[in-house]
């Protein structure tokens, strides 16, 4: 994808240098003596697992955190960054993984926030701000409506706003934190083109990711972080996915999930012409139909924001259905309440584990009975049985390898991967007919991903019907038996895994119709 076949010369002027950066958080050494050099016009990929210290390092470079030790040099000057403002002044702009945008404000307001041009009395000329945003978006090819309200925009566009925000502040060092996590392959490619356009205009980019393919495609140079340390600097030309993965994880990684052929049985889930509204009463699921059989994994692939969330919520009873039908085995559950659906042995791994999946201040043990507390043995005639709950907690923690100090520990204090394991343990430790897993591995470490993938496959092999919803194409392709591509609220095509090539699925996800 890169226009340049050879890495950019290392003798281009250095714009940013970090020496011996160390940062300690309670209980974890996030950065340990990290060195980093960034040249002008370079795309430097920073590769590492979740928890390797990438985000911490970038937060230090952008002034959000102050390091415990180490020096930062920007454009030949030794600097101390006390706040993001300090970094911005020196031209360092950061695009965070979790967008730092105010949802209820417009694009232009978000762009100018903190760097407003004002008239007398602090008056903000919003028209002038809109004009500036249009100008910038034209200059860099980042099309956007400055008067749109952020919460109405799809994530891809929100990301553009973040980039424009940095450019508006005349950033010439851009840090992109996991920018492709929420994008389709096509959107990612667009982003890469934008990145090259930017570097051509003299901007230097640090690109943080854990996706190996992207790194090899776009980066000029790759720094790998593991356990808070910089474990190597390599060039794309001399690396392979496997070598990068090994460097990143510290051991050999099996990139493919090992699984047998599916033995599909009878249909468990049948959905006909489903229609669902979002919060603003817009129809976002528009006549969706699919079915899942026992013993198979049907993966719904699609770019975030095409109605998957609303679809899964409607399926699990969390959101009213305005049209169509849902059948689980022989029972119609179109308008059933969540409790009823769950009692039909439907397990649900929710998309947002912190919002839906867990009660953070609850102990691990309490979270492990969140949808079964009213059953024997956890309660008897509406009275909880603490011993049974604790017993269940101890067993599941062991069985699902949840790394927690004790079952009394608050779920909120666990790492992302372990939080997800708690949910998976809860959902899979009971009889299951249908497993609905929405983005089950988003933002968690490789070890946990492997574990969860294996659990899902094991369920399939045990005869469970699995509906996997994922925006990660790699995940879809490695787990699915059939791939249903979702775009604009309906399934555009369902392919057997044999026919689901990366390119084909990618195109379908982007909405291009086949045939």
């Amino acid at each position: 994808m890169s226009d340049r076949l050879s890495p950019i010369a290392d003798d281009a002027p250095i714009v940013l240098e970090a020496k011996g950066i160390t940062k300690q958080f309670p209980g974890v050494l996030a950065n340990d003596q990290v060195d980093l050099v960034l040249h002008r016009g370079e795309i430097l990929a920073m590769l590492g697992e979740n928890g390797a210290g990438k985000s911490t390092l970038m937060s230090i470079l952008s002034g959000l955190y102050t390091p415990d030790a180490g020096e930062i040099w920007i454009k030949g000057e030794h600097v101390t960054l006390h706040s993001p403002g300090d970094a911005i002044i020196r031209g360092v702009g950061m695009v965070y993984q979790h967008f730092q945008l105010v949802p209820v404000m417009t694009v232009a307001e978000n762009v100018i926030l903190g760097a407003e041009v004002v008239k007398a009395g602090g008056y903000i000329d919003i028209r002038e701000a809109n004009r500036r945003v249009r100008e910038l978006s034209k200059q860099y090819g980042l099309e956007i409506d400055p008067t749109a309200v952020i919460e109405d925009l799809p994530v891809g566009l929100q990301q553009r706003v973040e980039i424009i925000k940095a450019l508006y502040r005349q950033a010439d060092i851009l840090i992109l934190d996991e920018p492709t996590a929420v994008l389709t392959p096509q959107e990612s490619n667009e982003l890469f083109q934008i990145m090259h356009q930017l570097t051509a205009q003299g901007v230097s980019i640090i690109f943080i990711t854990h996706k190996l393919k992207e790194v090899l495609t776009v980066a000029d140079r790759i720094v790998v972080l593991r356990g808070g340390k910089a474990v190597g600097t390599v060039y794309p030309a001399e690396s392979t996915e496997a070598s990068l993965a090994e460097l990143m994880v510290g051991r050999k990684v099996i990139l493919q999930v090992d699984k047998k052929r599916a033995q599909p049985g009878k249909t468990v889930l049948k959905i006909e012409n489903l229609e669902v509204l979002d919060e603003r009463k817009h129809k976002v699921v528009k006549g969706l139909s699919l079915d899942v059989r026992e013993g198979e994994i049907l993966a719904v692939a699609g770019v975030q924001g095409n109605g998957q969330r609303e679809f899964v919520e409607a399926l699990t009873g969390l959101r009213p259905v305005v049209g169509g039908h849902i059948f689980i085995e022989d029972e119609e559950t179109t308008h059933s309440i969540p409790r009823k659906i769950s009692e039909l042995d439907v397990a649900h791994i929710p998309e947002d584990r912190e919002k839906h999946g867990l009660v953070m201040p609850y102990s691990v043990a309490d979270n492990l009975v969140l949808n079964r507390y009213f059953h024997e043995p956890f309660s008897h005639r509406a009275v909880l049985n603490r011993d049974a709950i604790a017993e269940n907690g101890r067993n599941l923690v062991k069985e699902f390898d949840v790394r927690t100090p004790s079952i009394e520990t608050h779920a909120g204090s666990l790492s992302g991967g372990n939080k997800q394991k708690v949910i998976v343990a809860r959902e899979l430790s009971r009889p299951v007919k249908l497993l609905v897993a929405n983005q089950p591995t988003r933002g968690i470490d490789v070890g946990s991903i492997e574990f969860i993938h294996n659990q899902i496959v094991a369920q399939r092999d045990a005869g469970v019907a699995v509906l996997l919803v994922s925006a990660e194409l790699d995940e879809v392709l490695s787990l699915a038996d059939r791939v249903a591509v979702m775009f604009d609220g309906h399934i555009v095509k369902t392919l057997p895994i044999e026919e689901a090539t990366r390119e084909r699925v990618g195109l379908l996800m982007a909405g291009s119709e086949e045939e």
Partner: protein
Amino acid sequence: MELTAVPRKISTNWFIKNRWLVLIFIIIIGSIAYAYAVNGRVTTAVLASTLRQSTPLVLGALCGLICERSGVINIGIEGQMLMGAFLAFMANVYLGNLWVALAIGILAGALMGLLLAFMSVTLKMDQIIGGTVINILAIGLTGYFYISGLTTQGKFQPFALGPLAEIPLIGPVFFKNPPITYMAIVIVFVLHYVLFYTRWGLRTRAVGEHPSAADTVGINVYKMRYINVTIGGMLAGLAGAFLTLEGVGTFERGMTNGRGFLALAIMIFGKWTPLGAWGAAFLFGFTYAIQTQLQFMGVNLPPQFIGSLPYILTILVLAGFVGRSRPPAAEGKPYEKEGG
């Protein structure tokens, strides 16, 4: 209703979306005109009373609003008002200058605001507890230190704003008032302007909605909250000063009588916007004035029935027309820089 967001172009769509609001507005204006035609004197008196009663309420609501817009819940309005009222009164007694007393009342409110900011921003204390501490503290301190029998040097008297005061109905209601009432009206519009059209307002709202977003663009969240909460305290102090320097002229223990809590309700009622709060405070003041007027007219009902009117009306309006409202997203949560 999108009153909380930045005012965009008002289109016919706005009217359709807010048809209830518009309808009610038309009905209100119509009734006032009719009432004025029937009995001008009573109508004027009732509306003047409405404005008077709404003044401390709207000031208190604005206090809550500016705090919450920056992400800090303030249930200590009552206490801040009481402190403002008390110290303004004491200053009036001992210094004998109403304007100095006013300044001291505002200052007292500012200090109470600062205390709330300290508790909620620096100590990251639960904000409801912080507000409760202020409320109890104010009742205790003012009650303990108040000495009876002190006489003041009078109170603010109304003055007419030139020819404006000659306009029938509107003149005597709006343009013949004592200074703090004028100030309150001005502050409503100033705050509306500041909140939605200026840099300060943009930053304040950002801090209240998404503090880390504000932080990443170099806005000092703590400072913004400190200043806003302190300004809020000043408004509560002003509301208190209204009671002792303009409304009554003297102090009484616990004289705020729950107005700070009503202000809180009015703030929510007004959907966290200054104009909304003003409208809500007006509705409230109006029901109070009407309730008095009903007694004046000798309506043969126990005062307790008439006395419930404002509260029942508020519940009905809230349940029937206003419904769910959306507070600033980050309010109540202390902002914590993870590594800072």
